[in-house]
């Protein structure tokens, strides 16, 4: 009889816990679902507010989602803070860093953007997106040598990628490597015929 009471108690407790958990899961899933609907409708503040009741500072998903929604709502500094929490929770997830780059770029915090790309490349050295955009940053800062290394990497991985080919060509041109630049501009014209940037580059080489 005593054992039966124990079993009944355990079953009752497990039932309550399971019910509570499934209710909690359904609350979370419903909040996300409503948040997606509001995002689709362009109501970003509503989408943020849907997630507020289930917000947990140690939940990667909710932080990254609020980071994205805050970015869409043009709350850039708030978005950066959510993304930074997500980065701290999963330091090797490059997704959060790519997310963070968007609001950082919006407020022109280029040093932090660079920091994030460098960290992404530390985790994933072959990442073409990070290699390309960090290359663009170096190119804009007239650091053609650093830019060239990154574009070269992307072109070696994706020889038919127009964006990195044209950027590599411009780097070569700015570093007075005219023969290489000509080959690359011509290659860019094969990938994208009559491309104005490649034609301008070739005109400068004449």
């Amino acid at each position, binding site marked *: 009889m005593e054992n039966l*009471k124990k079993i009944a*108690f355990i079953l*009752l*407790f497990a039932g*309550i*816990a399971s019910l*509570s958990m499934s209710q*909690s899961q359904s609350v979370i899933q419903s909040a996300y679902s409503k948040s997606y609907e509001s995002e689709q409708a362009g109501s970003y503040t509503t989408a943020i507010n849907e997630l*507020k*009741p*289930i*917000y*947990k*500072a140690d939940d990667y998903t909710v932080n990254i989602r*609020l980071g994205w929604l805050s970015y869409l709502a*043009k*709350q*850039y*500094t*708030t978005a950066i*803070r*959510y993304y930074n*929490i997500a980065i701290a929770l999963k330091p090797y997830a490059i997704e959060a860093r790519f997310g963070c780059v968007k609001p950082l770029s919006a*407020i*022109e*915090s*280029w*040093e*932090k953007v660079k920091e994030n790309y460098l960290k992404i490349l530390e985790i994933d050295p072959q990442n073409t997106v990070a290699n390309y955009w960090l290359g663009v940053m170096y190119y*804009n*800062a007239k650091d053609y040598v650093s830019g060239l290394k990154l574009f070269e990497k992307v072109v070696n991985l994706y020889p038919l990628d127009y964006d990195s080919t044209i950027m590599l060509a411009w780097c070569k041109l700015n570093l007075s490597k005219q023969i290489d630049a000509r080959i690359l501009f011509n290659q860019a014209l094969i990938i994208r015929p009559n491309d104005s940037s490649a034609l301008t580059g070739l005109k400068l080489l004449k």
Partner: protein
Amino acid sequence: MYKILIIILLMVSSFAKASQLYNSFSDDSLSVQAADSTKETLTFQQVDSITYQCYLVGNWDKLINTGKEAISQQIDYKRLRQRMGYAYFAKTDYYSSMNHYEKALKFDKTDSDTRLYLYYCGLYTGNNAYTRYQLGKLPYETRKNLKAKPFKIVDAVDAEYNLKTNDNKTRYDANYGRLGVSTKLGYRLSLYQSVSTFAQLVDSSGLKQNEYYAGLKWNVCPKIDFMIAYHYLNSTIIDSVTYRRQLPWRGKAMDISKDTLPGNLFYSKISFIVNRFQFGLSGSLFNYSKYDSIKLAYTKALTQQYTFDAGVTLPGKLNLNLKSSLTAMFDLQTRRLIFSQKIGALLSKNFWLEGNVTFGNLKNYTEYDGLYVFNADDATTFKTGLGFFWNLTPNICFLGNYTYNMKYFDKNNIIIKYNQNSFSTGIIWKI
């Protein structure tokens, strides 16, 4: 028993859930709801829109206040700092402007607008080293527009004349003249050279001293300067009577009426700037010849000087600057402390007035980065003065100074005190 346990478990579970929900609201530091309902909560868009509008219409005070409030609510970004920097710049508060532009630079080091305003802030706060550093970081086109050159053999020339009069019958008026040339060796490296001559009749002797000075300054970074300098002093004492003297560099005793006594000063300094505050640490070694009245001969001697100085420029249009320095001097037998205080203010756009006072035995004391050496036999024990710099044109600055000195000398073990009045005038021509 089990009932109680179940109730406790349910209560704990409910409490945990309630606590979790509460935390999701109250612990969320990113919540847009402000804890203090009396304070207006700002959003990024509001801040950006308000500060941009204020920037366009020139409402600097509102821009600054909104910016401060935004920063306190952790809304901080490059454009906000640039706008705040510009607002302070427009209000001629260049130190605050510099502070905000430096914060903007942390967001984007490649922003040439930020660099340009940092250059102007350096220029208007009279910080030449900082100005040159920022100039060097500007794009080529901007430097070209500003007519900036990394190398300029003669960047500025300065000349100075000084007359010293006193109330002692054995000391005649002294004359001092100096000519200086400043050279730019790069955006972060500059050289200053100077030649000077001093002449005075003392009792039956004539004293003439020719000097050469070279100081090299390097900007390690915008806020740290490092300087080294060398100062050569060639003193000649012409006596009306011929004495038999032992000169340390001639080996043997000889009859002479003219003593040539060389002196070498080596100086180094590191300076730090923290916005309105300036700090400096310097040290110098002065090697010279000293007359030993017992041996009746000249012997070599060394004076070491170590100085710590700290200054601050107070907010306001006067740019009131206070600078204190404490110096420890080490001679062969003596150790002494010297305290100096300066105060300066920009009385009008082109006129800077400066007062100073120095306490302590200034024998072999050096000031202005080793340019001036108080190596006269008659030591100064107190000095105070008033000087001005008047910018007649953007390239020509006229300067003047009056200094009162309390001096003494030892005549057959009797200390004789006297007063000296010193008048200086000079010109700086920036080429």
